[in-house]
């Protein structure tokens, strides 16, 4: 009996000294976030292009379409709004989507370069490592979203001041969902040749078949099929969640859909990175 107890004591002591106590979780998360932030700071061109892209949409596309597309009064807006104001939340969501895809692409790159292996030999559970990686990416994308919103203020996108605060949880949830989608793609796709493939097959379809550029009632008038595709597109709901939150309003349906897709994507990602069941084992050879 006492022998058994002492061996439990020994195991416990082993675990604590090896950095296996509960504190290892926040330490590990902190390390992963710090690395993501450092990489982001070092890759200035990535940062600039992530910012220029939505600004081009805002400054050129939205200006051009301002007089083509009429936006009637729809919630959460209380007055007629210029087109720029309508598409701003969609552009914020696009920043989150781009960042999610960027980090998924960097995961594939990481896997080829081996640093994914470094992450996977950590003694912490794999689901935690993936979640930490996801959170790190979302923190970076939220910072980008705020920088965009700050610049967009000069285009008269002036939500109420508290809107900048209420949008934060929406950005976090939508960012997690789109980042988790990136994780799924990175675990299931062996090689993403370049970003063009992701642009063509993920970013553009998700962006265009959504409520980011036009209100869905407009789409419904044009095509009912397209309307339903847009309705089922999680990007639409991420956009609406952010749009409502930016004006201090809460959209329950969108939040539910975004949360549901987050769970689905995260489940698939953990499955994809599981050495026993997922695709790493079946993929057909060492990487």
């Amino acid at each position, binding site marked *: 009996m006492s022998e058994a107890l002492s061996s439990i004591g020994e195991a416990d002591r082993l675990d604590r000294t090896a950095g296996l*106590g509960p504190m290892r979780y926040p*330490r590990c998360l902190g390390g992963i976030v710090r690395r993501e932030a450092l990489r982001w700071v*070092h890759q200035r061109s990535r940062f600039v292009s992530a910012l220029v892209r939505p600004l081009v949409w805002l400054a050129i596309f939205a200006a051009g379409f301002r007089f083509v597309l009429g936006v009637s009064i729809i919630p959460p807006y209380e007055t007629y709004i210029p087109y720029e104001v309508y598409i701003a939340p969609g552009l914020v969501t696009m920043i989150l989507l781009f960042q999610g895809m960027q980090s998924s692409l960097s995961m594939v790159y990481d896997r080829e370069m081996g640093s994914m*292996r470094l992450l*996977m030999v950590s003694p*912490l559970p794999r689901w935690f490592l993936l979640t930490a990686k996801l959170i790190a990416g979302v923190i970076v994308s939220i910072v980008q979203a705020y920088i965009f919103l700050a610049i967009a203020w000069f285009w008269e996108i002036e939500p109420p001041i508290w809107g900048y605060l209420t949008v934060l949880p929406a950005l976090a949830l939508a960012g997690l969902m789109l980042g988790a989608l990136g994780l799924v793609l990175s675990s299931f796709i062996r090689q993403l040749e370049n970003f063009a493939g992701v642009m063509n097959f993920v970013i553009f379809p998700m962006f265009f078949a959504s409520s980011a550029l036009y209100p869905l009632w407009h789409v419904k008038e044009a095509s009912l099929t397209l309307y339903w595709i847009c309705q089922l597109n999680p990007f639409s709901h991420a956009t609406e969640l952010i749009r409502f939150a930016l004006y201090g309003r809460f959209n329950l349906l969108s939040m539910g859909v975004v949360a549901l897709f987050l769970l689905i994507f995260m489940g698939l990602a953990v499955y994809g990175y599981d050495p026993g069941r997922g695709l790493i084992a079946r993929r057909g050879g060492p990487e």
Partner: protein
Amino acid sequence: MTMMPPPSTLDRVSSRPALSVTEVSHGFGRRTALDRVGFTIRPGDFTVLLGPNGAGKTTLFSLITGLYHCGQGRILVFGHDISTEPSPALARIGVVFQQSTLDLDLTVDQNLFYHAALQGMARATAAPRIAAELDRIGLAARRKDRVRLLSGGQRRRVELARALIHQPTLLLLDEPTVGLDMESRGFLLEHVRRLCGEQRLAVLWATHLIDEAGVDARAIILHGGRVLADGPVPTIIRDAGVPTLKAAFDRLVAAAPAVAGDRP
């Protein structure tokens, strides 16, 4: 001040094997990469895993580190099954991968602290460990430099230092000397052998370069996913009835039945 001995200390005096691989087979589709591989490494052993490219070395490493699921056979690290108890098993392993896994844009320090965080170490605990390991490989002065500025040999040394920060008791090196000049190769080999002797670190050193197995080493010859020989280098040479390890290796490979190996 009373301090608990770190697990590494207990492992070093432990009677449990550092690594025990039993009847491990692994395939990719119909291709067999490993066929009933088995061996044991004790604390303080320096073992060279010798095999040509495609022998199954990297697959074996991927199984030991839990990157692939070990479906057939068993892998124990100090008694912990990598399939059922990955956490304590991985905490005891240090790995130097075949490909460089350093972040070129980050400094040496940033890379090493990142690894320490992945191991769950506090920064305050990691700092003296990092300083000590960098000092040992002679790169303490370069710690604030970006890895991009380091030579290939220096990067390898940093990777070795990184693998040792969390004081593992089993060190795995997958083709660590590929692409290095003679001097860097010699440094790395000598450094690891010294650690083995001084700290009773168990080492599995995979290579296709036969001369890296010195006469006093133990070698496991892996070919086509099978262990063809396992023992002290002089014994392998004697058993094969030839004068050198190279000749013994050639003879064993020639005598082995052809099997489908994996790609490198």
